[in-house]
């Protein structure tokens, strides 16, 4: 009983402890204090060095610009799509397409997109030479363009599935069918009625996920390395470059940059909040204005088009890379390779065994810890009648709102100075910070929706709380438990910075390999790596889907539960 009561506090400590300690560990060197490197007194020298870096303003502008653009693009897409297509077959189809894309690691999606849109990529090949006349890849700067357009597309394509699923989860509470029926009975078009009557209730529910998307997009490192400009890169990438520089004195500057990144994210979040208030005011005026239809066909088409484009970009990109992994000779304007074979797999496969094993071990450890902590928290909530407040949801989202690059450098420095060192243990703890919120979010809703009278009946039959948990609740909730585990596993597999920095650059996973390969541009080895990575995230989901059906194949009452 006692240890269970401590579960929520322990979970919070493990989730937020590294974030807070890491922030402190970043702030100190940003202010010149890092005894290990000879920094003993407070000074503004790191800030001055940062300000003297010639690329600073461009890096800041890129970070803010790409982050805001990607978030707005993703939110507009999801909103228009939901507004125009809720309850249609197109929606059901895209829901089935987009949901699995949530699990695809960011770097895999980015590398796939890079192959699609590159001057030598699939789109150019499909149009050449008959439409473009190109016999050789044109000299166009599409990838890593200075405005970060490719990066915006890559971020949006990955965030659209996330916001879409969050919107789907929020919809039932907004009673969309009833509200929309009333609006349409009053003469409003489908899209206009949805935007005016349903969207405000939905947005209130997805506000935290939107903030998380904004914070992530502003400070993403892996996607920026693959698709973003490099001279100068967005601020977060530059901080990581300084952190990995052999010249250790650059760590001070890196810390100052990390703190600046944190300030940027907080400032833009505040700006976004002001934007919300302004939008709410304008929206109210618009709703009260009584306009019944607003370019309905155009908005519906835009919603469907953008959502389908996002799904197609990720799916075709992965398909292209899969094809590269088995391609024989594949010259430029050809849309398909001359032949297929397993040569690339034979050549590059063996080198991936070690990183694949490391990826598996890290993900298994982080997921097992996260699942155990989540189950302990939820069980404590049930047994002691604790009521989770709205504040606990904010705490859960906190690791997703603080930019990774702001606290992971500090965590690395701290681990080193505490003598814990960098290595697998530190990396698992860093992964846990991000795996926990997702596992908790995935499991808490079905867990709380379970009918507690089952527990009362079991207790009246003489079963104690432990036996009820083991033999009634856990088996009944097997499907959502396994799904939550698969989500946690996928989150861990996709982590780049939380592997790179706490691992001191020595822990090699499929994700760190994939990012490192991006610069080389060898599509065969990229294809092999990304495919292994994708299989590694897809397999647990397949297992989570199949296992409960197999175990409970003779139990009709267990179908559709979770």
């Amino acid at each position, binding site marked *: 009983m006692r240890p269970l009561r401590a579960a929520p506090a322990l979970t919070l400590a493990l989730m937020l402890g590294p974030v807070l300690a890491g922030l402190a560990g970043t702030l100190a060197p940003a202010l010149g204090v890092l005894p290990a490197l000879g920094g003993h007194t407070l000074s503004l020298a790191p800030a001055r060095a940062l300000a003297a870096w010639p690329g600073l303003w461009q890096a800041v502008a890129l970070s803010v610009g790409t982050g805001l653009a990607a978030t707005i693009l993703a939110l507009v897409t999801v909103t228009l799509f939901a507004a125009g297509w809720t309850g249609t077959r197109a929606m059901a189809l895209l829901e089935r397409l987009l949901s699995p894309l949530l699990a695809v690691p960011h770097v895999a999606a980015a590398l796939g997109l890079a192959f699609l849109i590159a001057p030598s990529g699939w789109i150019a090949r499909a149009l050449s030479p008959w439409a473009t006349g190109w016999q050789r890849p044109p000299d166009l700067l599409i990838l890593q363009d200075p405005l970060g357009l490719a990066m915006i597309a890559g971020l949006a394509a990955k965030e659209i599935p996330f916001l879409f699923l969050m919107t789907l989860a929020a919809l039932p509470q907004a009673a969309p069918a009833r509200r929309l029926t009333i609006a349409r009975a009053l003469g409003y078009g489908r899209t206009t009625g949805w935007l005016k009557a349903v969207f405000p209730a939905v947005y209130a529910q997805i506000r935290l996920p939107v903030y998380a998307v904004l914070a992530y997009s502003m400070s993403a490192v892996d996607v920026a390395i693959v698709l973003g400009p490099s001279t100068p890169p967005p601020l977060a990438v530059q901080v990581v470059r300084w952190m990995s520089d052999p010249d250790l004195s650059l760590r001070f500057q890196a810390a100052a940059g990390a703190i600046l990144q944190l300030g940027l994210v907080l400032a833009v979040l505040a700006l976004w909040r002001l934007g919300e208030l302004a939008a709410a005011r304008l929206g109210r005026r618009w709703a009260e204005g009584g306009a019944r239809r607003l370019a309905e066909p155009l908005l519906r088409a835009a919603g469907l088009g953008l959502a389908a484009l996002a799904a197609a970009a990720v799916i075709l990109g992965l398909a292209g890379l899969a094809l590269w992994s088995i391609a024989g000779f594949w010259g430029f304007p050809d849309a398909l390779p001359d032949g297929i074979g397993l040569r690339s797999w034979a050549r590059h496969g063996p080198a991936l065994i070690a990183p694949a094993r490391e990826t598996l071990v890290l993900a298994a450890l982080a997921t097992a810890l996260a699942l155990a902590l989540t189950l302990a928290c939820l069980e404590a909530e049930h047994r*002691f*009648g604790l009521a989770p407040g709205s504040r606990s949801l904010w705490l859960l989202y906190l690791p997703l709102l603080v930019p990774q690059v702001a606290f992971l450098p500090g965590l690395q420095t701290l681990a080193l100075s505490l003598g814990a060192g960098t290595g697998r243990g530190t990396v698992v703890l860093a992964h846990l910070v991000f795996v926990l919120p997702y596992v908790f979010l995935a499991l808490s809703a079905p867990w709380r929706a379970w*009918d507690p*009278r*089952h527990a*009362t*009946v*079991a*207790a*009246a*039959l*003489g*079963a*104690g*709380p432990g036996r009820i948990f083991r*033999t*009634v609740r856990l*088996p*009944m909730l*097997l499907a959502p438990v396994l799904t939550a585990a698969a989500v946690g596993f996928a989150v861990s597999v996709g982590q780049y910075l939380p592997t790179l920095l706490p691992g001191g650059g020595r822990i090699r996973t499929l994700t760190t390999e994939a990012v490192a390969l991006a610069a080389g541009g060898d599509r065969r080895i990229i294809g092999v790596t990304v495919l292994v990575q994708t299989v590694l995230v897809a397999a647990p989901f397949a297992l989570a889907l199949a296992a409960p059906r197999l175990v*409970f194949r*003779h*139990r*009709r*009452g*267990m179908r559709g*539960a979770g």
Partner: protein
Amino acid sequence: MTGLRLENIVLARGGEPLIAVEAHVAPGEVLSVMGPSGSGKSTLLAAVIGTLPPAFTMTGRVVLNGRDVTALPPEARKIGILYQDELLFPHLSVGGNLAFALPRALRGRKARRARIEAALDEIGMTGFADRDPATLSGGQKARVALMRMLLAEPQALLLDEPFSRLDAALRDQIRALVFARARDRGLPVLLVTHDRADAEAAGGPVIAL
């Protein structure tokens, strides 16, 4: 003193008293508690069985066959409960549901299995042990739920509107079965209902909330 005694029970929420009950249910007797929804019937049952939500406070004692169970957790009280939903565990077979309720003291796979077969015979469901509970009819589910409760050898039975979901013909049949079994075993029964016919069929004293 045998039977179920509710001594001076006062349930309060945030200091506001909701219900006060003083009652004695003799073995084999049915005490009906009637009241509209929201009158605190279910809260009273939760207090007796030991699952009172933390928002409520309770004073008084629950005494079962001379044993003060007020401070005991639900699994140690030996009080059974039936709801309007059968709440058969969907992941277990019919036999598995009954086995869940059998006391640990009954040792041996064979002996336990035999006891389950006998229990199924008793409710006219011979050979149903391996069936999926989701495939049973409403009446069959109700009978399995009752038998599951009885196999745990409770010393008292709580009924939370247990017949309200059954159609009229089935309701009389199941009601008669439940009351007969409780009387056979000398169980004090606390019935919570808003259906006057339930209280009349029970034939015992009635408290209106």
